[in-house]
Structure formats: C-alpha cells, structure tokens
C-alpha cells in the first residue's frame, strides 16, 4: 500500500539468501485471493447504487483499482454529476502513477509489455513487488498478484452484481459498510506519522463539514486540499532553509 518509505532498493543480482519462488507465489496468492474476493462487495455495492450489471463489470475490467471504483459508484449513488464523480475517482487513482514510478525501476518492464503491465499497477501488486528481495522475485510477485487479483476481482464483481437482486436490500445485509471498510483498510497503513494523521483528520473534517453546503462529490475534492495545506504549513514551520533539504531521507540516501 502507499507507505511512504525510502525508494525501493534495487538489487539486480539476487543475493544468495533470495526467497524461493514458492514463498513468493504463496505471498502473492494470499494477497490476490483475499482482495480479489472482495470484488463481490463491489459488485453488490455498484448494482445496489443503481448501475447495471454491464456497467459494474466494465468498471472492474477497465478501471481495476478498487478504491476509485467504490468512490465512483458512491458518488453517483449520492447524486454527484458524472464529472465530479469521475474526478474524485481519478484523483484517488493518481497514487498509482507513483507506484508505477517505483515499479518501473524495480521490475525493469520491457517497453512492449508496459501498456499491459500498467493495468495491474495498484496498491496490492505494488506492495507485494516491493516486499521482494530481488528483481526476479519482484516480477514473479507482481505477475502472480496481478493475475490472481484481476481474475478473481472481475469474477466476483460479476457474481456480486448478479446476486445483488437476489440479496435484495443490500443495506440490510450491511453491504453498504464494505466500501468504507475497504477505504479504511487502504488508509490504515499510511497513517504512520503525525503528518499523515493530521492530513487525514483535516480531510475528515472538510469532507463531513462541507457535505451539507457543497454539491455531491465536491466535498471529497475539497477534502483533498488537506494534503497541500499540511505540506504548506510544514514548510512554513521548518522555514526556507529546512525546506530546501528534504528531511525524509534524501541526504541519508546519498551518504
């Protein structure tokens, strides 16, 4: 997930203590299966939000980044217009660009494969790939996680969307709590320092506080301003001298 750690250490020649392939596959399958099965919750949520089975499945097939999908159907269900709804989902997806940046060095994806590999650049594949000790293991982990998750996520999305009607009132089954639980599970590992916690706190206040006054979908976008706001305050507090040198490890890195 989007933990803010030092850039990945790339070891081209695998050290002898390299992880056996079976262990990598086991880790990757664990993540892929657990998260892939929650596509069911997305399918039900999406169909319950008024999207058709086809629309729901197209989202999982083509968007394939869970938080953005939940955000989109949530915003549409709340009456947001398609542009603000898509904007929220898009901004949430921007983190994948930074995952890609780290993965492109780590995996050294051949140019011809990049357009295909790109679709699988998400929280889970990144987390598994970054946890591996060698390039070979990272590639294996990325591929197995990506494949398992893609297949299961789409299959369970279809089942969920088809089953939504049979399930009836999705709220009675508590399925409207699946979306926020997914968001919380993605968020929790990111809340490492006071900076992240402050940002999250301000975002919650903005997101809920602006709910009654702004049109649906817009409060989330406004809450995103918590990020630059916190960074700006931090920059001011540290002063221009400290601002030039990033304290989060660039100096340590070049030592």
């Amino acid at each position: 997930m989007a933990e803010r750690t030092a850039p990945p250490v790339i070891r081209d020649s695998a050290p002898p203590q390299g992880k056996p392939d079976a262990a990598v596959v086991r880790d990757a399958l664990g993540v892929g299966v657990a998260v892939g099965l929650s596509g069911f919750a997305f399918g039900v949520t999406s169909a319950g939000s008024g999207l058709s089975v086809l629309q729901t499945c197209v989202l999982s097939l083509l968007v394939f980044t869970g938080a953005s999908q939940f955000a989109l159907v949530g915003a549409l269900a709340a009456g947001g217009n398609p542009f603000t709804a898509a904007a929220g989902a898009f901004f949430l997806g921007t983190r994948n660009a930074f995952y890609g940046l780290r993965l492109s060095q780590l995996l050294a994806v051949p140019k011809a494969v990049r357009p295909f590999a790109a679709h699988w650049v998400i929280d889970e594949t990144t987390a598994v790939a970054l946890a591996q000790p060698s390039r070979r293991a990272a590639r294996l982990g990325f591929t197995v996680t990506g494949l398992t998750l893609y297949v299961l996520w789409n299959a369970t999305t279809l089942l969920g969307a088809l089953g939504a009607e049979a399930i009836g009132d999705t709220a009675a089954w508590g399925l409207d709590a699946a979306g926020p639980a997914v968001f919380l599970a993605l968020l929790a590992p990111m809340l490492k320092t006071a900076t992240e916690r402050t940002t999250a706190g301000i975002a919650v206040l903005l997101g809920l506080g602006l709910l009654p006054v702004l049109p649906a979908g817009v409060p989330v976008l406004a809450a995103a301003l918590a990020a630059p706001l916190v960074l700006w305050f931090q920059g001011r507090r540290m002063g221009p001298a400290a601002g030039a040198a990033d304290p989060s490890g660039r100096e340590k890195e070049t030592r």
Partner: protein
Amino acid sequence: MNVWIAIALTAAGCYLVKLLGLLVPAGALERPLVQRLAALLPVALLAALTAQQTFGAGDSVVLDARAAGLAAAAVALVLRAPFLVVVGAAVAVTAGVRALGW
C-alpha cells in the same frame, strides 16, 4: 448515459495515470515535494471518503449502523486481520446492528 460518461472518464483517467508512472523516466517525479504530495493526497481522499460513506446520508451527517461496522473494521485492522476479514467484519457488524433494530 451520465453513468457511462463517468465510467469512460474514470477508466481512461485511471489507466493513463498507471501508464504514466511506468513511462515517465525516473527522476521526473522525484522532487521531494511532489513525492510527499503524492503520498499525502490518497491519505486525504481515503480519509474523506471513509468518513463520508460512514456518516454521510445525502447532504447530511448521520450516525447509524455503519459507524459500528467501521469500528469493527478498525478493530480488525489493529489486530492485523487479513483484508477480507476486515471487510467482512464491517459488513457483519453493520448487518447485526441493523437486525437489532438500530
């Protein structure tokens, strides 16, 4: 129709940012400020979305069974439960609390 527009925009946008990350030469996005903003932006969005989908009802803020579900998810996270258990706990507790008539 509106829904299809939203789906098309989201699919195109989300794919392009994924591809961008793999295509951009390392270093272009490596400015510390850009990196830190990129790390914080999802934190802000996820926090706001979690709060809204737990306490939001249209344009008002309410406290209902979803809050209990989210609390259960938080407990599961603290106990380092797997992803599926976290989501399952939220769903089960929300359903349970509603069944009790809250």
